[in-house]
């Protein structure tokens, strides 16, 4: 007869299984904590290896027989091609400064979510294969062979990193664990290991230009709906143009803002502003996606998907490009596009605002600016008429989306826009600007099956929102990333019910006074404006 354990014993059972070191503890794929496998059709579409039906929870992953050789050769190749990888493999002194900087570790306590150990997953194999010490005294120097359990661990933890780069900020050597994850995923892809929420969008984007695989006429339909809504709310009818050759500017939004709320409201705000400024711009139905899930797949895939931006800019003969409120899109544009697909086509020029005359020297090489830079410059020159009282009732805070904040330093422009439109409050210092906490759902992890992991990883962010919610009655979380706008609403519903999510241009759109508009009674969500009572009283 087995005796019941005491409650204080229960607390320890199964989280502390046999006292094995991290190197020998196998992973368990429990529903809610991992993402589903990519579908064979997606891999076939883009010519990726080993398309098949499989699941991470299966014993047999249906790998090619020589999978070890494929991965090790792949690693060797990349060590030669990317000097940064070689450096990252060699220089970590395991000082631990990064250990408690990852939101997945902070939310779970799982040591393998410490960035240093996440990187060690790859490093331990590197040591075994490519260092003398690793070959001679494996255990002592933390080297291990690439076995199937190790591979499963790679999959589990490389798809538990949102590539947010918060950890790299704290590493004295500048080791960027996100880049290690990127290489880890690239290697996994060599043997057909990836997730549906990355490969689905990648293949759809490759074929049809956006993550959901919506065709050009569907894209136009969505924009038309936005135009209709804007007319209902403001009385002003916008005249959009698609694929128009000779336009001055090509505007590239993340498709999330074209198809899904609350992103659509932010898109409406941008379209209204462009109209009001009389901007000569066009939309592309082929390049209907600024986002690039290739970033979460492999360098080559990222390059393939990114190529369409310049190609379309060239075809249409525009002078420069404005990109929408997207996160990872901007990491690709700001950090990789120039090297991957540059130099920019000859018809492109250094972006110059037609309204203020400002020349955006910072975009000299890419010829592409962020819509927040564009708008902030307009505000700075007093070119936009705003009535912030239309945002009455909204008390906002601002979430620095990881990529715009850490990968391009876009910190003050969105804040400047908020300053002009709405009452808002900063979250605590350790959780904003460069040190911002990730939404917990980036890099392809924002799928529904991964919900538990997302709530765990998003907790540090949500906890900071909770603070301003309690202190200042914050009820709106503004951000400039389409993935955030999809990921943060459930995060708020779990941790901070009552807090909604929006893009900064939604708030600008609410406040924007347009020529010829009717008396505004509703905000961009068709909710009654709260400043009306004041007007009546007056």
């Amino acid at each position, binding site marked *: 007869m087995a005796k019941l354990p*005491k*409650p*204080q014993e*229960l*607390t*320890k*059972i199964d*989280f*502390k299984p046999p006292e094995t070191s*991290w190197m020998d503890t196998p992973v368990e794929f*429990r*529903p*809610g*904590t991992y993402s*589903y*496998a*990519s*579908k*064979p059709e997606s891999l076939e579409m883009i010519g990726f290896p080993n398309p098949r*039906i*499989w*699941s991470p*929870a*299966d014993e047999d992953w249906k790998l090619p027989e020589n999978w070890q050789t494929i991965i090790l050769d792949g690693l060797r190749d990349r060590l030669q091609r990317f000097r940064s990888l070689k450096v990252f493999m060699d220089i970590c002194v395991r000082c631990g400064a990064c250990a*408690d900087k990852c939101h997945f*570790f*902070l*939310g779970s*306590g*799982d*040591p393998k979510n410490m960035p240093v150990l996440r990187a060690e997953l790859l490093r331990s194999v590197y040591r075994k294969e490519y260092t003398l010490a690793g070959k001679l005294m494996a255990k002592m120097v933390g080297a291990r062979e690439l076995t199937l359990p190790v591979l499963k661990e790679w999959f589990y933890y490389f798809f538990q990193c949102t590539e947010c780069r918060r950890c790299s900020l704290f590493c004295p050597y500048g080791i960027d664990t996100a880049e290690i994850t990127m290489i880890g995923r690239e290697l996994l892809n060599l043997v057909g290991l990836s997730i*549906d929420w990355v490969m689905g969008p990648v293949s*759809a984007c490759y074929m049809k230009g956006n993550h*959901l*695989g919506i*065709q050009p006429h*569907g894209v136009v*339909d*969505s924009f038309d709906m936005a135009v209709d809504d804007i007319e209902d709310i403001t009385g002003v009818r916008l005249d959009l143009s698609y694929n128009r050759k000779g336009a001055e500017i090509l505007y590239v939004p993340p498709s999330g803002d074209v*198809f*899904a709320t609350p992103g659509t409201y932010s898109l409406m705000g941008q379209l209204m502003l462009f109209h009001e400024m009389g901007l000569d711009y066009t939309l592309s139905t082929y390049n209907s996606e600024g986002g690039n899930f290739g970033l979460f797949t492999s360098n080559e895939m990222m390059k393939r998907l990114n190529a369409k931006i310049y190609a379309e800019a060239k075809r249409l003969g525009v002078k420069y490009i404005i990109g929408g409120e997207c996160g990872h899109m901007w990491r690709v544009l700001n950090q990789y596009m120039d090297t991957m697909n540059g130099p920019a086509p000859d018809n492109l020029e250094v972006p110059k605002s037609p309204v203020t005359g400002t020349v955006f020297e910072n975009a000299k090489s890419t010829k592409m600016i962020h819509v927040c830079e564009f708008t902030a410059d307009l505000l700075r020159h007093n070119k936009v008429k705003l009535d912030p009282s239309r945002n009455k009732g909204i008390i906002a805070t601002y979430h620095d989306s990881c990529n715009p904040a850490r990968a391009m330093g876009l910190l003050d422009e969105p804040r400047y826009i908020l300053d002009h439109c709405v009452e808002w409050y900063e979250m*605590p210092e*350790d*959780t904003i600007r460069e040190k911002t906490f990730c939404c917990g759902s980036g890099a392809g992890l924002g*799928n*529904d*099956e991964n*919900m*538990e992991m997302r*709530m*765990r990883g998003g*907790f*540090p962010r949500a*906890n*900071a929102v909770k*603070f301003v919610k309690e202190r200042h009655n914050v009820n709106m979380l503004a951000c400039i990333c389409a993935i955030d706008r999809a990921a943060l609403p*459930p995060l708020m*519903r*779990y*941790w901070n019910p009552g807090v909604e999510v929006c893009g900064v241009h939604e708030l600008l759109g609410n406040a924007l006074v347009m020529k010829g508009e009717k008396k505004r009674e509703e905000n961009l969500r068709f909710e009654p404006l709260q400043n009306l009572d004041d007007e009546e009283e007056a």
Partner: protein
Amino acid sequence: MSSSLNQFMREKHGDLLRQWFEIAIAAYPDEAHKYFVKVNNEFTNPVGSNIYRNMDHLLTELSGDRDADRLYGHLEMILKIRAVQDMKPSKALAFLPSFKNLVRTEFKKEIQKGQIPYSELDDLFTDLDTLALIAFDLYSESKELLYNLRIAQIKETNDILQKANLLNEAVDTSTFMRCSNYIEEE
């Protein structure tokens, strides 16, 4: 509620809290311990600091009025956190019944000498049982919310695809099932 047990508990608040918190965070891997005990880092250690703060309030309440609403409020965050942490309910809730043992050990002498009447102990233990049941409600509610969020997301995606006439193409339920084997297992 003024009783001798409560008086003793208030005097030993710090000691009890320290030990009780240790029991609660023993649920996490050893490697996390040194980070989770930094309870003053409210924003950079949200799990440790939230659990600590709420346990602190719980203890104050347990050794005071034991107001139901306030107790509920302090439990809520702890269980919300634990419901997303790969923890079975038995482990997530174990810190509550464990408090009985803590009291028995901490006040062994006083109990033996009769300075703490049995009825007071019994009252506290009964309240802890009730709290454990409430905590189980909170844990399950959080889990339910998780599933609802999942369903909401599936629905939202489907709505978008339906609008674009892409439903049959994009949500291929057959591969969805095959590639997940989650639904089949459940």
